[in-house]
């Protein structure tokens, strides 16, 4: 099991949610407050990623030694760093690369997971057994360990860090996809389609693929948040993007030296990482709920 499986709340039946429950009736409202806020923040992030000048007109690399280490103020919302660069501008301009890294890493992870999971779920028990053992071995490199091993081999840098995070998340995705495939394949509605005389190809296209792939959308949304956290952790450790790049993890790393005197240098880039991850979780769950109850 991985944190993604936890977040996605997988393991429930496709028809879950029918029974009477004392839990707060979540699907009652179309959009919860959390989802609206998460959506707005995501909108801001996408704008900042595509048109950073729109949300922060300044120069993220513009040095102004006279205004170094300024505390947050109306002029510099998030304060300034050791060279007088505006942190808000840098955080906004860093959105693009952080989002890109997170998205790419998630796509790599999902892609690898899809290949492995589909092999295991579709090609019969022997392949399933083999892939499963392989996944078990990969799970023995928990968390960032697989990523660190990858970086050891190919050296640090933004590109390797991105691939490394994708690689590290792949086993989790593979396991989820495999489980989903197996549960859909053995479901009563696939049997019912067989009884109706449908061929395996028709069943695959009409029932198995849609019911397996739809949850991937949720997984991807949840996963982007996690991938950004991991990628920035690598940057923070000096194995990914390096200062003075305006990448969130790298900014945090640069702020480490001044932790005692200029907390805002570390605080705000980190806050954006946290908010992005929270927003991704809220949105992913919102999508999941909608899919389940529509």
């Amino acid at each position: 099991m991985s944190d993604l499986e936890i977040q996605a709340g997988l393991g429930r039946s496709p028809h879950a949610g029918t029974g009477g429950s004392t839990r707060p009736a979540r699907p009652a409202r179309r959009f919860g407050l959390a989802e609206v806020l998460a959506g707005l923040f995501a909108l801001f992030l996408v704008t900042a990623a595509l048109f950073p000048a729109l949300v922060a007109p300044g120069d993220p690399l513009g040095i102004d030694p006279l205004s170094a280490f300024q505390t947050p103020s109306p002029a510099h919302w998030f304060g300034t760093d050791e060279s007088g660069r505006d942190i808000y501008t840098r955080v906004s301009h860093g959105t693009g690369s952080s989002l890109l890294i997170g998205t790419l890493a998630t796509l790599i992870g999902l892609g690898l997971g899809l290949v492995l999971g589909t092999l295991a779920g579709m090609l019969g028990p022997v392949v399933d057994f083999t892939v499963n053992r392989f996944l078990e071995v990969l799970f023995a490199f928990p968390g960032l360990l697989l990523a660190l091993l990858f970086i050891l081999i190919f050296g640090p840098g933004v590109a390797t860090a991105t691939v490394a995070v994708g690689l590290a998340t792949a086993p989790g995705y593979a396991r989820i996809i495999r489980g989903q495939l197996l549960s859909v394949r053995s479901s009563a509605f696939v049997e019912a389609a067989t009884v109706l005389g449908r061929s395996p190809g028709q069943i695959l296209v009409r029932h198995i693929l849609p019911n397996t792939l739809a949850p991937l959308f949720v997984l991807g949304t949840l996963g982007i948040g996690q991938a950004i956290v991991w990628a920035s952790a690598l940057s923070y450790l000096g194995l990914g993007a390096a200062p003075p790049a305006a990448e969130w993890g790298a900014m945090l790393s640069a702020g480490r030296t001044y932790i005692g005197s200029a907390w805002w240098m570390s605080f705000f880039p980190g806050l954006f990482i946290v908010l992005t991850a929270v927003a991704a979780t809220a949105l992913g769950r919102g999508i999941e709920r909608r899919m389940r109850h529509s």
Partner: protein
Amino acid sequence: MSGAASRTAAVRVRNLVVGFGAPGTDPVLNGVSFEVAPGECLALVGESGSGKSVTARSLLGLAGENSWVRTDELSLAGTDVRNLTAAQWRHRRGSDVGLVLQDALVSLDPLRPVGREIGDSLRLHTRLGAAARHARVLEVLDRVGLPDSDNAVRKRSGELSGGQRQRALIAAAIALDPPLLIADEPTTALDVTVQAQILDLLASLKRAGTGILLISHDLAVVGRIADRIAVLHDGRIVEQGPANEVLTRPGHPVTRQMLAAIPVDKPRGLRLSPRTAAPVSLAPPASDRAAAPGPVLETTVLEATGLVKRFTRPDGTPHLAVDGVSFRLKRGTTLGIVGESGSGKTTTARLALALTRPDAGEVRVLGQAFSAATEKERRRLRPHLGAVYQDALSSFDPRLSVEQVLRDAVAGGARRTGRGGASVADRARVLSLLDAVGLAQGLLGRRPLSLSGGQRQRVSIARALASDPQILICDEPVSSLDVTVQAQVLDLLDELQRDRGLSLLFISHDLGVIQHVSDQVAVMLEGRIVETGAAAQVFAAPQHPYTQALLGAVPRIGY
């Protein structure tokens, strides 16, 4: 506790009103009044949603979160319990009233030994030491007919059989000998023979002086032990009186409808539900096939010979689920297969549908090889076979609407993505199918998840009919439905059979249902057919002792 207490009612409730949400709005129980005397059994009968379980929980002060309760009187063993604090309520529960729920597998904590569960009441309400408690637990187990021969106290509910664990659950409820026992559908999950034993146990408790409030959806079941019956409908008691009177001279239409819906001893073809329940089918009968309805043609449409299916249990031991089963289904007739849980009847259905491969034996459809053929060859024959499952909901793709489900079935596997003429014809077919099963067009856009159980089963039948099959295989098609809904579905199947000349393989655990629907019947026990023959003959003069036992255990009205 005997003398004076035996004169006071075990429970008396007057004008009980219960609702959820804002106080005073939308009550689910609306003015319920009754009392149960010591040594008396009052049965509270109603369909799902009538408010039975809410009544039971309200009497225990456990109506639930967000609930509000108003009542003019509520007394347990003579004590007014309307204004008790939480701690005072806890003191009453278990000592003044015990509760028995439906499924002991989950109503007893599956992680704890049943001895502990039974001892809990003693731990909570008495100052007995561990040894004294243990002795008392053994005593109670003995009383409910579960002597500790196999160290039952140390087993968990999952390690006991269905009947044993239901006895243990009753033991936990009566450990302190409460004057009132509330039994909420205590036999619903059980096989009919076990059900009879549990009802006998409740009857013996009653004779010993316990007042019993028996809650059930099944009038026939309560008839066995109830002294009085109250019929609950939409949160009100619509009829209350001595059991005999209610069962033989029902005064309220709801009671009459429920009684009419009971299939036991009702001849084949007799309607169980009122005509108005489903719109009359205006579609002309399928003229090409309905020329000769009834069991006139002696053609075999589905034949099984010597079916054997082995499974491996989780602990590695082999298990013969189906052991040499043979049968023939004749055109236009119904073959009923009846058996208790674990008898192999569902495996038989799956073998007949070629969803699983037999280890020996063969299934032939319309005289052609079916189980022995490849799936590709079978696909040619599959349109002649329709299937209706017990759990209709899980047999629908959760992403599809009713219309999509039926269109998929109608399209016959052909890819018709365009909006051409074929699609218009498909739509007409879908509408005629809906009409045939008595569903309104308005349901087309809905997902099966949002339909009622009866509606889902109708959609499932419509889907099975889409390819105009000759054979319908129904595996427990009405088991999870209310009696009146069950009656409607049975009537629908009967109607469809006559209109379309269908041959039905009808599998059920319910002997009453089988008796009502079958022309031929086969009784299964431990993977074998122990008795088979014409239904009338088997039911009139059962030969095998197991069939006799089954028939004897079936709850009947007017015994």
